[in-house]
């Protein structure tokens, strides 16, 4: 309730970002971090469903996976892996700078992170359009003549579901980073309060981590 915030934030010497139901900034920060960890657990379980699907179908049709995965471009996947790992580094630097109160530096690192995320999506765009062109599509839409295994469409169902859901997370991540850049420019963060920056950082590292699993499972393993 907005008026209760006003009650508490003025006159008591409280930090303006301190909500009325917390005793101090530290408790509030700890609660927010705990909440974010729980959210990431739910993300792991959601992706977990797809990974289970992958395990089941790879167990059923290992030779199909061996054949179908060859059309994925390892150099492009590897490039994207490097891009994302680098973006995790710049994210980390952005968070650390925010924590130290170095606003300009933080914003700069966050912009680089967005840029790298965009690079990832551009590479993904080229990969996807190649597959669209070749008819390497999920399930019923599949129409490629070079892959002979009758179950091959399933591989592309999993590929598009997993990389698609991951790509969606990348886009959400870009929006979130953009949001904290704007807040940062409005000078809302300080060494006492940089919770949103830290949490978006958590999220971004998670998005990277998913790709770290997707790359070998899709492009390399079979």
């Amino acid at each position, binding site marked *: *309730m907005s*008026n*209760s915030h006003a009650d508490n934030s003025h006159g008591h010497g409280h930090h303006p970002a301190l*909500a*009325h*139901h*917390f005793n101090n900034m530290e*408790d509030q920060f*700890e*609660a*927010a971090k*705990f*909440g974010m960890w*729980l*959210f990431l*657990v*739910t*993300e*792991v*379980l*959601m*992706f*977990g*469903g*797809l990974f*289970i*699907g992958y395990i*089941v*179908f790879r167990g*059923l*049709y290992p030779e199909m996976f061996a054949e179908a995965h060859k059309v994925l471009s390892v150099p492009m996947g590897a490039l994207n892996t490097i891009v994302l790992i680098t973006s995790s580094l710049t994210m980390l630097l952005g968070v650390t700078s925010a924590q130290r109160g170095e606003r300009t530096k933080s914003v700069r690192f966050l912009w680089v992170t967005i840029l790298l995320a965009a690079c990832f999506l551009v590479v993904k765009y080229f990969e996807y359009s190649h597959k669209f062109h070749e008819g390497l599509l*999920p*399930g*019923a*839409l599949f129409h490629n003549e070079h892959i002979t295994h*009758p*179950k091959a*469409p*399933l591989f592309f*169902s*999993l590929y*598009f*579901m997993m990389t698609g*859901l991951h790509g969606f997370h990348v886009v959400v991540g870009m929006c979130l980073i953009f949001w904290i850049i704007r807040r940062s420019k409005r000078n809302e963060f300080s060494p006492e309060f940089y919770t949103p920056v830290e949490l978006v950082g958590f999220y971004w590292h998670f998005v990277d981590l998913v790709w770290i699993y997707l790359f070998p499972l899709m492009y390399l393993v079979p």
Partner: protein
Amino acid sequence: MTTSSHSNYLNHSKGLWSWLSTLDHKRIGLMYLFTTLTFFLVGGIFALLIRLELFTPGQTIMDPNTYNRMFTYHGAIMVFLVIIPAIPGALGNFIMPIMLGAKDVAFPRLNLASYWIYVAGAVFATSALFLKGADTGWTFYTPYSIRTNSTVILVLTGAFIAGFSSILTGLNFIVTIHKLRAPGQSWSRLPLFVWALYATSIVQVLATPVLAITLLLLMMERLLGIGIFDPKLGGDPVLFQHFFWFYSHPAVYIMALPGFGIISEVIPVFSRKPIFGYKAIAYSSFGIALIAFIVWGHHMYVSGQSELANFVFSLLTMAVAVPTGIKVFSWVATMYRGQVRFEAPMLYALGFLELFTVGGLTGVFLATLAVDVHLTATYFVVAHFHYVMVGGTIMALLAGLHYWFPKMSGRMYPEKPAAIAFWFILVGFNVTFFPQFILGAQGMPRRYWGYLPEFTLLNQISTFGSWLLAVGFVYIAIYLWKAMRNGPVATANPWSGLTLEWQTSSPPPHDNFANTPVVTQWPYEYRVEKA
């Protein structure tokens, strides 16, 4: 409703918008309460229509296609829009932070968001009603759910969205319980309703994301034909069942555990005795939550699972009876030699004990492999889960609703009508569902529009019972509505309870307490008064 002289959460700010945009957990709780009860009415009407159709072996009031839609709506609405959100969303939201001595939940804006996400899910799910409906049953089994030309995708989307509401509520509650306890509110002094909600929240956070991905895959199946669950494209329809029950079995405990929490509060207060086995009750909730995740295969004994898997799932399922039995034993032992008072919350708690025990024990029948092969997909299963879900969760919800009604509204409900309504519900429930055990054992399949003539009498008894139930629920709605508007004003602690919500005024002030409370004792130190 807002005639009380002191400043409270109800008269803190005015106007519709101050409710729709509120960050106050108590107001959000009330909004959940009204919304879930509205859907309870809708789902209940579908239930009455189903029972009416089954009054005769052939067509009574609707054709088979309509009937398929009716039981799908009834199931989907009751599960996703009523039983899962009702107790955590309404009573949990309202009472739990006060029990902790907190001013609010950890993330009030997220709390409001989960309410509106729930509403958005509900809008999607119910919009199917006005289009081509949904006829898959609430379980959406493939491949039929891929092929049907009904608008099942809207219900899928609705359940998908509502799932996020459930996740966010669970997440919010876990952080609240960890981080916002008042000074002195140690883990060993936590009220059992809070413990139960904690265990529920863990299940919500861990299981619901799997439902999300399952429903997303099914939506993609319908939109793009990805084939993961479609045998025609090399996929595996049984995999859908695994995914679905990996969520939906734990979901049964999302529905049941909060109810256990309410019963654990009501019984000691109305028996004037310390709760028996405090730790056993608290920990058994976690035992149930843990086992919940490893029993999903008991829904699939006849789906082509391996015999070994069936055997293991059967054994594990029976293990659920242990922590559940510990609870029932502790509740009964709490009442033993107590000073039992039979006000409405206690009546419902006793009704809960009777019905839930029947539901729980028939669950052991169903866990038994050889028996279940005969009983799978018969009315025995229908009777079993209604005894657990209605006899358990809804009875507990009614116990909690009456117990906390004075706190939430600041007014007392009338005791006599409450007792009359209780008997309508208890008798009506048994008349409705007990015959279904017999029908199921005799082999009447669930979800069928027609049945053999020899099943007519038991079906008619069941339908008659559904009318008694309806009378009971409508009566409750009427007297609670009246009491809310002009019932006698409630004191702060009408039941002489020791948990923190009774130590603040009724209705509570906006910040819950005038001063942050300091907890100095265990909340169940009740004493039997010597005569």
